[in-house]
């Protein structure tokens, strides 16, 4: 490993740790706030929201170090390779949050809201079910991280106007889904049924895993292409 590679990894890890530390503080504040006002302790929902926040904040780790690494003689290919490390860190971070969620759910006697709980009936042996749950969490984590990675890569490529437009599109989508929720629900239910393997023959986790892995790979490829094509403005 060359001096440059070592320095790059150290710089990147340092950056990621800072982002994660800031994210944790924000999450803590958010979580305490929500818990205080709702008194509901609906941990699953809260953690679900937190995971999205983690994705958005965690993926800042893509844009920040890119310019500094480029300044210090890193090529695009080297930077993208390094960013995969961030992808893994982000995955580990999301996974640890999910684990906390599981433990929290267990102690609060809340049925895990995760889709994976639906597969309980599919497996006769509880150990196989537990293994599938862990595997499922791992696959879901990879998917979340890759979406974050793709989102971050898209974000750093966009101009200021593009960023505003993307923000408006996201808000518009949220409004549309809230307004037309009842109409869209059957369509999405059908899509989710296919993706989650909830076919007429019974719940089957493998289609979910296969779909998640495929989507993860596509997101990674998309992010990689976006980052390789990234160039500093004139």
């Amino acid at each position, binding site marked *: 490993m060359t*001096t440059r590679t070592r320095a790059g990894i150290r710089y990147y890890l340092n950056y990621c740790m800072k982002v994660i530390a800031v994210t944790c503080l924000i999450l803590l504040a958010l979580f305490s706030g929500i818990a205080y006002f709702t008194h509901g302790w609906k941990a699953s929902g809260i953690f679900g929201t937190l995971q999205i926040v983690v994705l958005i904040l965690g993926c800042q780790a893509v844009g920040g170090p890119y310019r*500094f690494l480029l300044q210090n*003689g890193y090529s*695009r290919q080297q930077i993208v390779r390094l960013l995969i490390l961030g992808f893994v860190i982000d995955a580990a971070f999301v996974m640890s949050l999910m684990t906390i969620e599981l433990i929290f759910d267990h102690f609060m006697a809340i049925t895990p809201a995760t889709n994976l709980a639906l597969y309980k009936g599919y497996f006769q042996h509880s150990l196989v079910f537990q293994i599938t749950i862990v595997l499922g969490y791992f696959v879901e984590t990879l998917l979340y991280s890759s979406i974050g990675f793709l989102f971050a890569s898209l974000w750093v490529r966009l101009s200021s106007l593009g960023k505003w437009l993307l923000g408006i599109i996201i808000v518009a989508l949220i409004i549309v889904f809230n307004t037309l929720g009842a109409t869209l629900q059957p369509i999405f239910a059908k899509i989710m049924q296919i993706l989650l393997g909830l076919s007429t023959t019974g719940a089957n986790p493998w289609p979910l895993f296969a779909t998640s892995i495929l989507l993860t790979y596509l997101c990674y490829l998309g992010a990689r292409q976006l980052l390789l094509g990234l160039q*500093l403005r*004139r």
Partner: protein
Amino acid sequence: MSTLKVEQISKSFHHHQILNQVSFELGASGIYGLLGRNGMGKSTLFKIMTNQIFADAGQVKFANMDIRKQPELAARLFLMSETDLYPNSMRVQQALDWTNKFYDHFDQVFATKLLDQFGLAPHQRIGQLSTGYRTIFKLIVALCVPADFIFLDEPVLGLDANYRDLFYQALIESYTQRPRTFVIATHLIGEIEHLIDHVFILVHGELLVNQSTESLLEQSHAVSGPAKVVDDYTENVRVIGSDRLGGLKVVYVLGDLDETKILPDVVKLEKVALQELFIHLTTTEVAVNDN
């Protein structure tokens, strides 16, 4: 040490051609000047040469290898860019420490000396520095990195005369200690005239001049005197510009004078300063190339 070849580089932004088939070669050591008016593609060329943006056509070769295909070569080229690529929240000392980790032989001693000479506080955050001090910070990094080719884009932007002088001294000191290649793009041509060995002049995306400073200046003449006499004397030579004040005229000539003509007593012959030559060349756009 190897040379850096720029081969047929073209680049356009939003259908506007910035660089058009630019080719030249940089030697293993020397101080070059890349001159051009605003918007002529100097910064774009630097960014392409350091792999920060991509050319539409052409390639940059270092040791006969395409820099885009050999990632490790990027470490041997350094661009001190007008654009700030350092995180605003980073402190000056942190940035130097990180740069030190990236480069095996970063000159930390020289960096500390320059920080002291320029009066730049190491604990200050980069985002809080003024334009001048931000330039100073970037200059210090550029002069201390052990890269083989260092590109300085507007290295004296926002610097007062004292700091500019200090920078030129530091540049010479650094170059003397370790000869390598510096390419300077600046609008303060008069100040770098005595520093640069070779001149490139970009006009409308094309390389108008690619010549050693000495030979370029040797070929340039300012012929002054009564307008009629000057016009007669400079007939049939390459005139790149003229100034007129009443009955007196100064004609700027690039190239050899007509040796068959005797210099009239009332006509004065002088050398032209690089800045003056640049102004006339970039106005008349006469193609000059010693290759």
